[in-house]
């Protein structure tokens, strides 16, 4: 796993090191606490985000108590599905931790592999949520305006879903940035093409098999075809991003990781306060 950092072109690495080490003022800019500015700002943001989710979760719990609105939430929820996607999200946190560790060890291929896993797991979670929302709206008749329960449920879990989606997008940017700058260099790296193949094919396979399992629901097929077409296009269009990952960007990946872990922790609370509490 521990491939040395020779994957970065030698000259770029030297230049960035040069800028960081020979400028004494840059050196004096070491922060007062020793925690980097970006990380400090992310912690402040997460503190604030706690209050965002805190307000939404309180709204849901208050209304659940005084005005149940839905006769039998146990009938509404499918705890097996939500439990599965919660497990997937937790495992994505585990992969994120491995990503950050690999980034700090300057093991770029390893980082890329774990990052890909994190993104795929995040996408599975999002897929689960899309399925759940569609199922609730079409089969169970729960909408934003059908009851207060619908209002609080969709706004709370929807806000969390938007957080996950932004996180997936953010991590995808770093995945693309860690690819070689020139498409010709792709073959030079061991297992890179295999990784990209998995990234490309596995969502398609899952979606197509869902199409057959779930009574030929056309949306699965379309989503599968969509990803099959979209992914190569993203790779081609990412020219300005590819090759931008330098080893000092490990900090940025770590900051993205902080965000990702936070979003997962919040999901544990939502899963408890919205789903599990109905089975007590």
């Amino acid at each position, binding site marked *: 796993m521990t491939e040395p950092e020779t994957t970065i072109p030698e000259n770029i690495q030297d230049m960035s090191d040069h800028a960081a080490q020979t400028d004494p003022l840059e050196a004096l*800019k070491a922060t007062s606490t020793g925690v980097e500015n970006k990380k400090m*700002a992310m912690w*402040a943001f997460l503190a604030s985000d706690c209050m965002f989710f805190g*307000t939404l979760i309180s*709204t849901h719990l208050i209304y659940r108590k005084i005005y149940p609105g839905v006769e039998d939430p146990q009938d509404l929820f499918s705890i097996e599905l939500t439990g599965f996607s919660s497990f997937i999200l937790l495992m994505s946190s585990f992969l994120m931790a491995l990503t950050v560790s690999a980034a700090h060890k300057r093991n770029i291929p390893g980082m890329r592999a774990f990052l890909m896993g994190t993104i795929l797991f995040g996408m599975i979670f999002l897929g689960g949520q899309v399925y759940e929302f569609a199922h609730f709206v079409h089969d169970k008749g729960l909408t*934003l305006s059908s009851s207060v329960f619908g209002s609080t449920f969709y*706004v709370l879990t929807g806000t969390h879903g938007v957080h996950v989606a932004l996180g997936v997008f953010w991590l995808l940017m770093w995945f693309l940035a860690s690819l070689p700058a020139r498409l010709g260099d792709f073959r030079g790296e061991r297992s890179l093409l295999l990784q990209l193949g998995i990234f490309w094919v596995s969502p398609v396979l899952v979606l197509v098999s869902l199409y057959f399992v779930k009574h030929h629901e056309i949306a699965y097929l379309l989503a599968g075809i969509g990803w099959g077409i979209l992914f190569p296009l993203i790779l081609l269009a990412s020219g300005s991003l590819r090759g931008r990952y330098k080893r000092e960007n490990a900090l940025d990946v770590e900051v993205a990781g902080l965000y990702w872990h936070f979003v997962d922790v919040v999901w544990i609370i939502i899963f408890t306060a919205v789903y599990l509490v109905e089975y007590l």
Partner: protein
Amino acid sequence: MSTAASHEQIADIDAGADSHGIWTRPLRKTGIVGFLTTVDHKKIGIAYAVGALFFLLVGGVEALIIRLQLMTPENDLIDARTYNQLFTMHGTTMVFLAVMPLSAAFFNYIMPLQIGARDVAFPRLNALGLWTFILGGIVINLSWFFQGGAPAIGWFGYAPLTSRQFSPDLGTDFWIIGLQILGIASLVGSFNFITTIVNMRAPGMSMMRLPLFTWMTLITSFLIILAFPAITIALVELMFDRHFGTHFFEVSGGGKPILWQHLFWIFGHPEVYILILPAMGIISEVLPVFSRKPLFGYPLVVFSGAVIGFLGFAVWSHHMFTTGLGIVATSAFAFLTMLISIPTGVKIFNWIGTIWGGRIRFTTPMLFALGFIWMFMMGGFTGIMHSSPPVDAQQQDSYFVIAHFHYVLIGGSIFALICGIYYWFPKVTGRMMNDFFGKILFYTIFIGFNLAFFPMHILGMSGMPRRTHTYKAEMGWSEANLWSTIGALILGFGIATFVIQLIYSCFRGEKTSSDPWDARTLEWETASPPKEYNFAYNPVIHARDQSWENKYGKTGKRMEKIAPGEHGIHMPDQSWWPLVVSIGLFIAGMGVVFHGQPLEALVPFVTSEIDVSLLHLTVPGLVLTFYAIFKWALEGPGGYHLHPSPEELKGTREAQPHEQQGH
């Protein structure tokens, strides 16, 4: 004065971005491009102040129209609906567009100078805060020009008045979206200030050596990041109620309007301290300087500020005593509210201790600071009265409450902010504001303010309800209302003249040295106005009142100056993207305001059958926002190096090896 600039590329990563972008990186420092793309905390601070003073005048005119309407009984200067719109916009403008941004102007300009930093931690994020503030203010005030006019819901917008059923017009939607955008401004600003204060202090500037204003900036920023989410979510819920049929506050669908009150005041009470703590910070800077004594009980003043901030989150329900919370909740919130008078009292005693036995100079800032202590105490005393639920039940929604919070917000916040402007004006412009005129203006404002608001105590006690558009002559309120209006006109004249003096002094004020007040804190060590890079050297701090110690202290407590290395001083590049992100948010917000309305509401004189949907403006606006954030990230902070002139580097020494250890 020969400052050599060199546009070396700091890192190769940034060089790459320029060639790919639609816009190359803006380099001009002057003119309109320099203004729109600036990342300099000093320019941003000045822009905040200009915007805030403009909105202060707008809110002041709204207040004067209200007072003119109430001058005589059964007056019909304006109708009831316009009156409702005016007090809604007056409150919203003063809280969110005048006092908060004026505080933010000081945070921006003064705080980095006080801690010896070159800029804030994220200069481009700072610019984003400025542009979202300005565009958010524009969104709220645009409501006057569209169907239905401004919102008429009160500045705290209680449900269910804000529902589509009772407020069908667009004013409420403008209010919701404007406050959301302003929330972004406050939040990104606060993340930035927290990081800056915690992380970018000069060597030797420990937390307990921070100037008091910087401490209060830190505490205020924490209050903002923890309090604003509550109102943001409440506004999101209200927006969903109005546009997408949810039932958060809709009684017919099972919602509870009281939830709005809780969410609003969980934000609203910390907001009170967001407005007053910066003011207390300014006062704690000014009193020691003009008493020629150190601040009395520095750790206690810091600690009581933190306690005020902490307790501020535990007292919100005292705004809701009359809603019937139950005995236990009411007693608990009454007790916690009374508790807040302790740290506040500690601060006041410390300020008195500071001037006690000092060699006081009665300059204009000192007069405003002393006026602050007295007037803020008046507001504080009536505040303690409100903390008792039975008393509060009598005073709820009466003019007594109006008197109370105008004493703490004008006699408190505005006095302190004007005090801060007189005090730091020489630092910002290198010129003085005339002290004689300043004193005349102080007495004008002081007399006008008391004449306007003291009679309101009596009016409230004799039963005049707030938010009443007129009253009968038999009620016996006529005389006090007449005096109050006369006072308001004097106050308005005073504030307007103050703004004129401010503008005049920018161009014609007497030139002055870098330290005209013989002051105590680090910002007075650098030139007035400060250079782009704030300090030509890196200061090493050895004392709390470092500037004072440099002048009068022992040799061991003097500041050390470390010269920049051969590369010079690293400055961040300017950027278009903060402005573009704000414009994207503005467009997206306008899309939500007009969501579901016929196209005519947005574009007059156009007749068509189309309703505005989210696809027309919101989605394109969000796409623009995300595109701009993406470009922002790709462009990187960039940078170039500046070399200070040799005379600026007099008395500096080279950095020691151990001081060079960095990342």
